[in-house]
């Protein structure tokens, strides 16, 4: 089980963060960065963010919408929603299993 999105190399974690951010609705790049920083305390760099966006778009997990004043919003595709759900469930199983081991017997 991978703890990031499979097939995304070093961008698997940023890609997962982008998908999670888009789960609450369409956002453009800057809004995603701010959302990720506010919710998870992770400050994604612009190069990393767009590396993840490019890969997610290639994998058809997100799709671009009409640009608004040079800023282009993105949204999850049904395939992206499914991939995010699957990944979050895998992470949840991992977390539960890990916490069980840590819990005093």
């Amino acid at each position, binding site marked *: 089980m991978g703890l990031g999105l499979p097939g995304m*190399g070093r961008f698997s974690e940023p890609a997962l963060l982008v998908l999670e951010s888009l789960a609450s609705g369409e956002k*453009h*790049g*800057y809004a995603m*960065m701010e959302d990720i920083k506010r919710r998870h305390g992770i400050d994604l*760099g*612009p*190069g*990393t*963010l*767009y*590396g993840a*966006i*490019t*890969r997610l*778009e*290639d994998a058809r997990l997100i799709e671009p919408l009409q*640009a608004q*004043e*040079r*800023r*282009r919003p993105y949204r999850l595709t049904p395939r992206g929603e499914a991939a995010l759900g699957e990944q979050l469930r895998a992470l949840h199983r991992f977390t539960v299993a890990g916490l069980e081991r840590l819990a005093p017997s």
Partner: protein
Amino acid sequence: MKHLLRLYPAWWRERYWEEFEALLEQRPLRWRDAVDIARGGIDARVHQRPRNQGTTQQRRIAMVVDRNELRDELRAILAAREELGEESEEHLLESFLDRLEESVRPAGLQPPLQKGRPTARTLWRWTVGVTVLWLLLGLSSIAVGIPWSLGSTAPAQVFAAAVVSGYALVLVVLLCAFLLSSALRTMSALIRHSSRVGTSAHG
């Protein structure tokens, strides 16, 4: 910061430049961002491919679609031949060959690279190569010439000059070999290209 965006390949800039630039304008940039953008640019060049090139399978599908179009084109040409007669045969054949060439480069795909054909980038590399060669030659001459011109026979100076000039000489020989092989390759490509152009112009 815009200089850093040049690290990204042309297809990437064409697709993302505007929104990426808009993003950069929305927040204060730090040195960490500059490094991140540079890494992103290198990644885009090394690990990503132009989206319109597609996977091998997608390209095969594109060829199949074009094959069907070609079949229709051929049928139309054969029908036209029957109507127009033998005289238009050459023209129809040319038309079909044009269509065939298009099918090898389906719409939206990058044109295939033409190996050996000189480009502006090749000429630029040549210019840089020749300049470096002249600089090395000059440096080695100075390294050898200065102790002589000063009339110095100090062993340390002579040894240093010999090392430097010897080192430069090795580099010069390597560079010459590289430039010569490049020149031969480019010249043969030029000859092939001009003979192709000549043939098609006469044809």
